[in-house]
C-alpha cells in the first residue's frame, strides 16, 4: 500500500469549523447550567459541561480511529454496519433502557447511548454504497425502491421507539437521491402534501377546502380542451386531493399522539394551545428575543437557565446563544453552519466516484435537516421536533454520531486520488 501523508490531505478548513463549533457548544452548555451563587467550574463532572468535555474527549478517540483505519474499510463494511444497527434498533423496544417513556437508550452504567443516532451514519454509508454499486441507475424503479427501503427501515424502527423527530431526519436522504438524478416529482408531491396538511389545519372547516378544489377543477375543465382523458385526470386528481384532506383530519385526530398534535397546532396558533407547547415556543422566543443585537454577554443570560425553556441544554441550546450572544452571535453560528454545509458540498463535488459523492451529500443532508429544523423550531418557524443541533446540543450519542459522520467523509476525501472511478 502506498504510504501517504494523511494529515496533509485532510481538509483542515472543515476540521477547523468542526473544532470551533464543538468548543462553542461546550461553552454554551456551561452557560445553561451556570449559577453565579454556586460558581462551579466548567470542568465539574456534575454539570452537563463537565460531562460534555468527556464526550468531546471520546470524540477525539473516534476521530483518530477513523483516520487510522484503511479507507476501503468504510466501503467494505457499509452493509454490515447498517445491518447490525438495524438489528439493534429492532430489539430496542424490548431491551432498551426506559427514559422518559421511550426505550431508545442502551444503558452502560450511568451513561447511555442512543443507537438511533448512529443509525444515521450507518444508513448514509449503506445508501452511498448502494448508489455507488456497479450498474446502479437512479431512473431504475427497482433501484429506487431499494433506496427507499434502505431509509424506510430505520425510519420505521425508530418510529417504533416513538422518536418521531429522529425518524424524520431520514427523509433528508431525498436530497441525495435528487442530486443523483431522482425525478423531482416525488419531492414536489411531498412538499405539496405537506402544504396541504398545514392548510387543512389552518382552515377550520375542510368543506371550504373541498369547495375551493371543486371550483378550481371546474374552472380548469371549462378553460382547457374538452378531451375526455384530460377531464378524467382532473376529476381524479381533485378527488385525490380531497381524500388527502380527509386523511389529514384523520391523521391529526386519530394517528398522531396528543403531544404531536399539540406541537403542530402550537406552530400554527400558539395561543390556542391547551397543553403548553405554545408556551415553550413563546418562552424560547422571549429568551432569544431578549438577547437584542449584541446579547447579554456570556453567562449573563437569565431566561435560558433552568425552568424557563425546556430541554435547555439539548434541543433548545440555540436559545442560550440567542440570549447571551444576541443577533450577532446567532448569525455567526448560523454562518458557521452554512459554511460547513457548503464546504461539505464542495468536498462532495470533488469526489471521483459516486460512493464518495453520495456519502458527502448524505452527510450534508443530515446536517442540514438538523440545522434547519432545530433552529427553525427555536425561532418558531417549525413545529417543536426534538432533534439536536449538531455539535452544540448536550449529549454523547449525537456528538459521536455527527463526528463519525463528518470524519469518515474527511477520510474518504483525503484518499480521493486513490479511489477508482467505479462507473
Amino acid at each position, binding site marked *: 500500500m502506498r504510504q501517504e501523508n494523511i494529515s496533509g490531505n485532510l481538509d483542515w478548513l472543515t476540521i477547523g469549523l468542526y473544532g470551533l463549533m464543538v468548543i462553542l457548544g461546550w461553552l454554551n452548555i456551561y452557560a445553561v447550567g451556570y449559577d453565579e451563587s454556586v460558581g462551579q467550574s466548567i470542568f465539574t463532572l456534575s454539570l452537563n459541561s463537565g460531562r460534555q468535555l468527556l464526550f468531546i474527549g471520546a470524540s477525539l478517540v473516534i476521530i483518530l480511529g477513523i483516520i487510522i483505519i484503511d479507507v476501503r474499510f468504510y466501503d467494505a463494511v457499509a452493509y454490515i454496519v447498517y445491518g447490525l444497527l438495524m438489528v439493534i434498533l429492532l430489539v430496542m423496544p424490548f431491551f432498551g433502557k426506559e427514559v422518559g417513556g421511550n426505550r431508545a437508550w442502551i444503558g452502560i452504567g450511568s451513561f447511555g447511548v442512543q443507537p438511533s443516532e448512529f443509525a444515521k451514519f450507518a444508513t448514509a454509508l449503506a445508501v452511498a454504497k448502494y448508489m455507488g454499486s456497479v450498474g446502479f441507475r437512479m431512473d431504475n424503479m427497482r433501484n429506487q425502491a431499494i433506496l427507499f427501503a434502505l431509509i424506510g427501515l430505520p425510519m420505521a424502527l425508530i418510529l417504533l421507539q416513538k422518536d418521531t423527530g429522529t425518524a424524520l431526519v431520514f427523509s433528508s436522504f431525498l436530497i441525495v437521491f435528487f442530486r443523483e*438524478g431522482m425525478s423531482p416529482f416525488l419531492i414536489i408531491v411531498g412538499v405539496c402534501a405537506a402544504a396541504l396538511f398545514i392548510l387543512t389545519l389552518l382552515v377550520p372547516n375542510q368543506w371550504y377546502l373541498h369547495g375551493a378544489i371543486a371550483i378550481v377543477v371546474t374552472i380548469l375543465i371549462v378553460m382547457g380542451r374538452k378531451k375526455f382523458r384530460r377531464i378524467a385526470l382532473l376529476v381524479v386528481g381533485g378527488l385525490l386531493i380531497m381524500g388527502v384532506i380527509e386523511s389529514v383530519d384523520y391523521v391529526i385526530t386519530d394517528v398522531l399522539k396528543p403531544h404531536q398534535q399539540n406541537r403542530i397546532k402550537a406552530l400554527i396558533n400558539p395561543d390556542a394551545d391547551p397543553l403548553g407547547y405554545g408556551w415553550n415556543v413563546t418562552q424560547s422566543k*422571549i429568551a432569544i*428575543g431578549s438577547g*437584542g443585537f449584541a446579547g447579554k454577554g456570556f453567562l449573563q443570560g437569565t431566561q435560558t*437557565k*433552568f425552568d424557563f425553556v425546556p430541554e435547555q441544554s439539548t434541543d433548545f441550546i440555540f436559545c442560550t446563544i440567542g440570549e447571551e450572544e444576541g*443577533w450577532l452571535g446567532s448569525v455567526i453560528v*448560523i454562518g458557521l453552519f452554512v459554511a460547513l454545509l457548503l464546504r461539505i458540498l464542495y468536498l462532495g463535488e470533488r469526489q471521483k466516484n459516486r460512493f464518495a459523492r453520495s456519502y458527502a451529500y448524505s452527510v450534508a443532508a443530515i446536517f442540514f435537516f438538523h440545522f434547519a429544523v432545530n*433552529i427553525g423550531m427555536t425561532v418558531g418557524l417549525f413545529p417543536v421536533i426534538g432533534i439536536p443541533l449538531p455539535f452544540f446540543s448536550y449529549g454523547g450519542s449525537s456528538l459521536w454520531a455527527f463526528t463519525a459522520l463528518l470524519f469518515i467523509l474527511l477520510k474518504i476525501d483525503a484518499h480521493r486520488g486513490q479511489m477508482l472511478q467505479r462507473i
Partner: protein
Amino acid sequence: MNEGRKEIFQLLIIVTGIVFAIKLFFIQVLDNRYAQMADSNAIIRQTEYPVRGLITDRNGKLIVYNTPEYKLEVLLKDVTDFDSAKFCRVFGMSREELRATFKAMKARKEFSPYKPTLFLDQLSNVDFARVQDYLDEFPGFYVLARTTRAYTTPALANALGYVSEISKSQLEANKTGIYKQGDYIGQSGIEAFYEEKLRGTRGVRFKLRNVKGIIQGSVENGAYDTLSVPGEDLVTGIDLDLQLYGEFLMKGKAGSIVAIEPATGEILALVSGPSYDPNLLTGRKYSSNFKLISSDSLKPLFNRPLMAQYRPGSIFKIAQAMTALQEGVITPETRIRCDRTIINCHGAHSNEDLRGAIANSCNPYFHQVLRRMLNQGKVNDPYEDTRIGLAEWNKHITSFGFGSPLGIDLPNEKSGLIPSPAYYDVAYRNRPWKFSNIYSIAIGEGENLVVPIQMANFAATVANKGFYYTPHIVKAIGNARLPLPKYRERHYTSIDSSYFRIAADAMQAVVESGTGQYRARLKDVIVCGKTGTVENNPPLFDHSVFIAFAPRVNPRIAVSVYVEDAGQGARAAASIASLMIEKYLFGGTKRPHIEQYVLAGHFEDPKPQ
C-alpha cells in the same frame, strides 16, 4: 441531467441561513417586546397541585378526604431587603430558624435564584389568613395552596396507609419525571398501591407580576394555564361501621380480623391490632409522629392481616379433609379411632366419622388422614412415596391460595408457607425424610404458615363451594365504577365442588354441636365455622383462631379472626367472629354478654407454671 441540481441544494442552504438571520433580526433587534418581557420577568409559573382522590366505604361514607394547607415559596432573585424581625414574627420563627431555612434551601442541589423554591412547608389554614395580609411587604415570597389528607375516623389506618413528601431516594428511583421535590406521594397501603389513580395531574398557572413582585393576574386570561386534574375517587368494599366495630373489639389485643364478601372478594373489614390513628400522620405533624409510631414496641405499623405469618392450627383440618376426599383416601363415612398415643387430643370422643372429627377437632383422625394421603403406596420406597404424596398434597393446598401472596391491592402482602418436597430437602439438608418426620402439618402446626387474609379467603372459598375472587379492598375506581380487572376473575381450587358441601356441613356442625357451639352460634342465622388453637410458648397463652361464614345458604360474609396469646379458638376468636357476623347481618349484637366477654379480654386463667 444532474447539472444544476447541486446549485439547488447550495441555494437552499444559503436561503435557510438568510431566513434565519432575518427572522432573528425581527425578534431580537426590531421587536423589543420580548426583551421587555424578559427584563421585567413579568411572568411567573406556579404549580397548581391536584386534589387527591377521595376514599369512601361501600355505603358511600367518606373515609379519607383532603384539607387545605399552604406553603411558602421564594424566588430569591426578587427578594429585596425586608424587615426580618417582622418576617419572623409573622411566620412564627426565630432569627436562627430563618437563617437556617435560607441556608438549607440554598444547599439543595436543584436550588436556583431564578426559579421559585420551597421555603416553608405546611402553613396551616389559620396561619395563612394571618400571613396573607403581610405578604406584600416581602417581595419574592409567594403562598401556594395545596391539600393534605384527613381522615373521618381513626379506623383502618394500616390499610389506608399514609401520604408524605417524596423522599430523595424515591425521587431518584422514579424515572417518570412526574414528581418534584416536595410533592406528596402515597407511602403505604391504598395510598401507595393506587398512587397513580389517586394523585391526579398537576396544573400550571402563569401569573403576571409588577415590578414589586405583586401578582397582578393571569397571563392572557389564562390561555396558557393548565388546570390540575383531580385524582380518581376510590370506593372501597369496607363497611365502615363493621370496621369500627372490629377495631373496638380488638382494642387491647394483638391480632387481626378479616371479613370478605364471598360472592365478590370485596374486603368488608380489615382490622389490625394494635393500630394507630391515621390523623397522626398527616401534614406538619407527620415527621415527629412517624418517629414515635414506627419505634413503638407494639408495632402499630405492622399490618397483621397481610404481614403476620401464623401457623393456622385446626382450621387447617377443613382443607386437609377436602384434599383427602379429593385424593380418594377417605370418604365422609370413614371412621378413625381417636388414638392419643402419637398425637394429643381433647374432649370426649372416641371413634368419629369425618364430620364428627371436624366438629370435635380430633387430632389423631387427621394425623391418620395425612398418613393415608402422603403414603398412598404408589411406590415401595416409603421416602419416595412420601415425596409423591406431599407434592400432590401441596398442589391441592396451594390451590386454595395458601403459600403465595393472593395479590390483594395493598403492598407488602406475605406469602405464608406450604411445605413442598423441595422445602424439606433443604430443611433436612438432603437427609431422607418421611411421614413420621413431618406429620405435625396434619393439624396445621409444624412448618405451615398462613396469613390471616388467606384464612378469610379460605372461608370465602368454602362458602362459594370451590372458587374465590382475589380479596381486594377497592371495589370501584373513579368513573369506571369497577375494580381492577384481576379482581373480576374467579379462581377455582383443585377440589371438586361436591366436597365443599361436606366441608360446609362439618363447619355447621362445629358451630351447632362442636367446639364452637358456646360462643359462635347465632339464633337467627346458620353459621359455619372452625376453631383453631395454635400452640404458643408458655407462659404465653396459645393463639386463638376462628374462621367462619354465614349464612349457610347464599353466604354474605366470611371471616377470619386471629388473636395472639388469647388461648382457645373457641373463646376469643370465635366470639369476635360471631359478633362481626352479627354486626354485619343484623346491625348489632343481641348477646351483650359475649361482647362484654370480648372487651374484658380475660379469656384464660393464667397457666400454672
